[in-house]
């Protein structure tokens, strides 16, 4: 690695375009939002530069706190489900016969490359009242009832509301973020020295005990890292609550969008944005702090 002073010209050529762009089209906009978060909104929607913490305080009012709490709750449940579904998937790929590993990884990653909007709204057709899922369940139910000859005594299938509520949102978030968890989990499991597992079996521990006492503790850093990342992504979701959610499932993302589009209350929206941003930073810092700690005990 060379010192920048030795090749000032080259350094400038390589780094200045990026620096320019990130300052002008990223840092500056964020700074403005930050400033706005302390301003107030005028009657015609203009900005009044009157420094105060009002917006932040307003964000902590019960009505908004509920939404923040809901976001954290939905994100937590989604992340937990992702972990429940993603861990076996990662195990299956990590312990698959070698020639299957790459194809399986590609299969897991491929949906990730399709548009998130498309992947989200696809669930509308599945979950709505006369959607595919209800059709399938209704058809199975009716078929069973008819086969058993009970069509006169039992009511016909009444489809439950699966769309426009928080469960649809959770399904959507799980669906969209699953690859984000499976891939790092796979990487962690792949790096694990299998002879630890063999040693545990050899010493008499059953498969279940080996899993709990050896595999999970050794894979924990990777699990925690992936889980935190998925949680961060889930908290900031917009499309899932907007398209799949209902009155009970407003999240921070949709709340912020409303401030900027309908309510035209940019200062308040800015305060909310920055609250989200601060929490993201805190979680990221937590993630790297935990990663640093586990580096001390070299498990690989």
């Amino acid at each position, binding site marked *: 690695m060379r010192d920048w002073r030795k090749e000032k010209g080259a350094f400038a050529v390589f780094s200045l*375009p*990026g620096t320019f762009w990130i300052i002008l089209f990223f840092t500056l906009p964020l700074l*403005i939002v930050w400033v706005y978060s302390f301003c107030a909104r005028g009657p015609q929607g203009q900005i009044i530069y009157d420094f105060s913490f009002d917006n932040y305080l307003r964000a902590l009012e019960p009505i908004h706190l509920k939404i923040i709490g809901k976001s954290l709750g939905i994100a937590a449940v989604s992340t937990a489900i992702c972990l429940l579904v993603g861990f076996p998937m990662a195990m299956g790929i990590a312990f698959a016969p070698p020639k299957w590993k790459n194809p399986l990884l590609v299969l897991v990653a491929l949906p990730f490359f399709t548009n998130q909007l498309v992947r989200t709204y696809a669930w509308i057709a599945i979950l709505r009242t006369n959607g595919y899922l209800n059709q399938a369940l209704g058809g199975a139910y009716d078929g069973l009832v008819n086969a058993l000859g009970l069509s006169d005594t039992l009511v016909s299938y009444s489809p439950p509301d699966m769309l426009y509520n928080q469960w649809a949102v959770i399904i959507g978030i799980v669906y969209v973020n699953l690859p984000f968890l499976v891939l790092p989990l796979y990487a962690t499991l792949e790096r694990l020295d299998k002879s630890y597992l063999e040693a545990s079996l050899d010493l008499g521990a059953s498969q279940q005990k080996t899993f709990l006492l050896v595999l999970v503790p050794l894979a924990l850093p990777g699990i925690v890292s992936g889980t935190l990342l998925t949680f961060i992504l889930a908290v900031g979701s917009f499309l899932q609550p907007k398209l799949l959610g209902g009155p009970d499932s407003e999240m921070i993302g949709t709340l912020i969008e409303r401030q900027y589009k309908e309510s035209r209350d940019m200062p308040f929206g800015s305060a909310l944005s920055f609250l989200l941003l601060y929490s993201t930073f805190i979680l990221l810092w937590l993630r790297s702090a935990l990663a640093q700690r586990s580096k001390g005990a070299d498990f690989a």
Partner: protein
Amino acid sequence: MTAVATTAPPRPAAAARRKLRPAPLEYGRRTWLRAVMVVSFIFLYAPIVTLIAFSFNNSKRNVTWEGFTLDYYVKALNNTALHDTLINSMIVAFWSTLASTIIGSLLGVALQRFRFPLKGPYEGLIHLPIVIPEVCMAAAMLVFFAKFVGIPFGLFTITASHIAFSFPFVAVVVRSRMAGFDESLEEASRDLGANPWQTFFNVTLPYMMPGVVAGALLAFTLSLDDFLITFFVSGPSSTTFPVKIYSMVRQSVTPEVNAASTMLILVTLTVTAIGMWFQSRSGKKSVGHG
């Protein structure tokens, strides 16, 4: 003492070739795990597959299957509004990819090669667009263009925003490619009489190329697929393809919407496939470069 012979007693005749049980650690061969994997993959692909399948549905309301047709593709392709947004998307993706690739590749080299003060915080800043919640960045770009700069939303605002969140990805990809670069190749070039620019173009750039291409394809995909940031900074006459699909979805999920989405999926998957193929090819090539 005689030398111990190792001829064993004759082998049992024709030992049957039996299919082996999975070994203790061969979890991938156990039935229950295979079942879980199959179910998971069905979960992962069913929504996309049904969406694509129902784009061929001969039914406006698109609730039940009523026959195969390509009508809605025709409709989608003839939809001038969709058409225009597709052109917009392509224009934005093109310029965004071009600028992001150049800016990001240069930055990737800079990060890999140079030591400079405050490098740590600077790297953090560069990585921010990657980890920041999209809605925060979307809000920032809206405020910036609407209030600070005061220009109307249009292709420029969209493109500038796309570049802002794409070039860090390119920088990361190119940087990791450059991590494997043998700097003595550059020294050899200088030793043989080439000046720094010649060295860059003849020695460094060829090595960088696979990373640059991978980064470019990534930038293209990110731009084409982007929704939220574009949604915030696009105007009524300058929407992109995903944003248009969004407004169509808000009305109703017709086969036409599905058809448009399927076409979008096809484009991004093709680009991704090209990228993966290219990467695997260059992986073999660069072994020779050493």
